[in-house]
Structures are given as C-alpha cells and as structure tokens.
C-alpha cells in the first residue's frame, strides 16, 4: 500500500496503492486539484478512476477538472472501529457526497461535528496531505 515504510510508521491508516492506472488521480490530489474521468468517445463520467469506460469500454479518457463542490448524500458517525489509526480518531464521519458533476464519492467529513451534519448540506473539497506521497480527498462544510 504505502510507498515508503517510514510513512507507514507515522500514518497508521491504510494508504492507497498507486499504480499506472490511477496515478493521474493521486498526482492531481497531491497538487490539491480534483479531476474525474470522462470518456472521449461517449462522454460518460466515472468515479473511481479506471482504464476503460464502463458504458462503451473505450480506453480513450480525458480528465475533467472539478470545482470540489458537493452535497452530503448520506453519512454516519463511526463510534467503533478497532483498526489502527481509526480507533484513535473516534468518532469520525464517513459520508457519501455527491459532486456537482453528479458523481457520488465515499469520503470523510472533517472540520465539523456529527450533529452539525445534515443530508443535502453543501460541502467543499479539502486536500489532506496524509503522507509526502499521498493526499486524500475529504470534504468540509462549504464556507
């Protein structure tokens, strides 16, 4: 998962495995930019990133810049998780947010308490630099 062992020591939560298929996504996040994939042949948008369009199986893909604006589709305050990194962070908020571009993304809501969250509430992307190699896409209440 992690690129460097030293990252794993400081950062206990799971890190994504970055490979040739998903590298543009993770490199954009590292630049604090959000891009989603769009099929050059049929125009279908997709998340998470993958090599082929699920609608027409075309490998011809462009990356569409997103504004990072979204609304909360649903959420939960996690009170119990024994996994390292998360057990120290309880309670934390898991959520699906729906990007303005229409795609639902699983994420954490940050900079807010569970009782402040409402479904439909506008949120905005925040780029959390988890390690020098990995930046995660999280969301906070829109300002």
């Amino acid at each position, binding site marked *: 998962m992690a690129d460097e062992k030293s990252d794993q020591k400081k950062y206990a939560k799971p890190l994504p495995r970055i490979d040739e298929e998903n590298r543009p996504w993770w490199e954009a996040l590292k630049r604090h930019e959000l891009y989603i994939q769009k099929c050059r042949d049929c125009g279908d948008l997709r998340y998470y990133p993958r090599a082929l369009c699920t609608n027409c199986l075309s490998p011809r893909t462009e990356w569409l810049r997103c504004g990072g604006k979204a609304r909360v589709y649903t959420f939960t305050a*996690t009170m119990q998780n024994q996994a390292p990194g998360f057990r120290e962070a309880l309670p934390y908020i*898991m959520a699906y947010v729906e990007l303005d571009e229409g795609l639902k993304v699983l994420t954490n809501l940050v900079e807010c308490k569970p009782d402040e969250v409402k479904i439909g509430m506008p949120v905005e992307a925040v780029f959390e630099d988890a390690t020098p190699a*990995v930046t995660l896409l999280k969301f906070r209440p829109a300002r």
Partner: protein
Amino acid sequence: MSLSRKTALAGVYEHPARFAPNKSMFQIMAESVRGALDDAGLKIQDVDGLCTTGMGMSGMGIVGFCDYLNLTPNFVDSTSIGGSSFVAQTAHAAAAIAAGLCNIAVVVYGSTAASQRFAIGTGGAGLGGGDPCDQYEAPFGPTTVGAYAMMARRHMHEYGTTSEQLAEIAVTMRLHASMNPAAKYRDPITVEDVMASRIISSPLHLLDCCIISDGGGALVVTSAERARDLKHKPAYILGCGETVRHPARGRRDFMEMAAAQSGRLAFERAGVIPADIDMAMIYDSFTITVMMTLENLGFCKRGEGGAFVSGGRLRYDGALPINTDGGGLSSNHPGMRGIFLVIEAVKQLRGECGPRQVKDCELALCHGTGGALGTRHSGATLVLANQ
C-alpha cells in the same frame, strides 16, 4: 427452460454450536454434512456434488474440505459473494442437478468466528482489501456496520423512517429467538432497550446489529423425484435469482438493492407474487437490511418499510412472518448466514418448528444479502414450496 419443482431440498441440519473453541471449522462442517445426510436418509457415498465457502477458508478451501472428507464430487461450487453465498449455491446445485451434472449435492458452511474472535460485521473491523475499489474506500475507515448505517440514515431522510421502526425488527427477532432453544440470545427485549443500547455507527444501535457466534449448517439438494423417496416431505425449489449492486461508477441510487433484481427473477421463475408468500427468511445483518430488503423484494413499496414492519406484522403469528429462528440479530451469525435462511425455511415448510411454527406454511422465500449495502453487495433469492 424452467427449474421450477425439478429439484428439492431433502435434508437440512443446523449445527447447535454457538461457541465451539474446541472445534475446527472443517469439523463443524463435517458434523453438519453428517446431520443433513442423516436428516435426508442418505450416506456420504451418495454425495456427488459439493458447494461451500467461508470467511475462514482459503481461496481453494473447497478442495481442502473435499480432502478432509475424502470426497471426489462430479460438481463443485465455491461461489463466494458474502453471506448470500449459500442461497446462491443452493440455486447453482439445483441447476446442476436439473442439467444432469450431479445427483446429490451438499451445501455446507462452518465458522468459528466467535471463538476465534474474528471481527465480523458488528465487531467494527475495517473493510478493505486489495481491489481497485478498495483504494478509494479503505483510507476513510469504512466498517461493515458503517456502510449499512449510511443506508439507514439515507432511508430516514428520504422516507421519514425512525429508529423506533428499525427497533421493531430487532424486538421481533428476539421474540422468535425466545422460542428457539438453540438461539444465542433468548431474553425478550423492547423497543426502549434497542434505543437505549449504545450507538455503534449512527443511527444504528448495538441491538440493531447482528450478533457474533460460531456455527454451521448443511443442506442436501437433489431431484424432486429422488427427494420424494427420502425421509421427509421435499421442499421444492420453485425459483431463484441472484445479482450484485455497487456504487455504479458513482451513479448508484443506494436505496435500490440487489434484492430488487434477484427477487423479481425468483418470483417470475417461480410463478408467484410477494402476496403469495407464507413466510420469509430475510438476511438480517442489521435491522435496516431487513427493512430495505422487504421493500426491494416488493413486499411493500419503497419507503413504506417503516410502517410495514410495525404492528407485529413480522411475528411468527403475523401477516408476513420472517426469521422465525431469531435471525442473525438473536440466534446466530457466524459471519455468513445464508445457509440458515434455507434451513429454517425448509423446517417451516415441513411443519417442524414447534412453538414458532407458522400456520399453514406452504410457500417460503429466502433472501441473502452479502457484503455491504453501502459499498458493494450481492443478493440471492430462493422461493420454496412443500407441494
């Protein structure tokens, strides 16, 4: 080509163990095979089809289990789609028998989740593996219960469902468990008890979640003709369906479940409608799983689940009895509960359920949900009849 009434369940056995630290998974499975074959009046030498999977098993676990029991079957199936696997495997065995690939198939499951302290579902372990999709989920700390809790929250938002309505389901399952001597938790509970139990992942409470136990079970599937010559009245397989749901590249309507598709297929293939069903076994990993499954199978409209589960409708003496064994919420949940759905349905169709017996039970439905509603899950539906 229709599968309806060509095959039947001729033997069932639920392992009584709920905590078995001195037994291996394979021992529990082997004891379950013996139980189901005894129930059918068959010998191990009669078995020429074997279906199994398990969370504690390696990818080739089915071959290892054939080694353990010295089996060389003509048909093997280790479909592994979560807790629904054994419902799907029962259908696969039926199709194999109807196609002449084997004659007597055993579907078997065993687990020592409780004694080995697996952190299954309610245990609150993290989800995540090495598949591409996991790279976009595991970093955020998804749990099994959390993935279902997000669906409960959305259901409440879209339809006004309440925690009290979800609690009704847990209360009914506990009532049924109180009538099942093998159930792990048998003391009655109230809606207030559920509401007062701690939140595991909001809005789900501890008592909205399935229990963790050891356990196992087995089923014998054979042709209808052969089944009629065996010990018990056959439970005929009328229809089946299976499919999966996932985030659909970011476009999923999460209130729609695999059950909507697998259920429609099973009803069509069986030639029956939801109103015909006398009792249903609905995978109850969490209370919300039951409510959404009932909606998606068409027992009520989407969004009407809250009212539907209220007023005792799901009790053994109600209009649509479900999970009369006490379900995963109170009887047993060793990680993958699908096999117990089929076992209890067959016992109900035979009229063997004693105080919890559903009156005039002729047509039963089993629906297994595997995986997590909020990320990826499978659904498998079976319709069974005793005539």
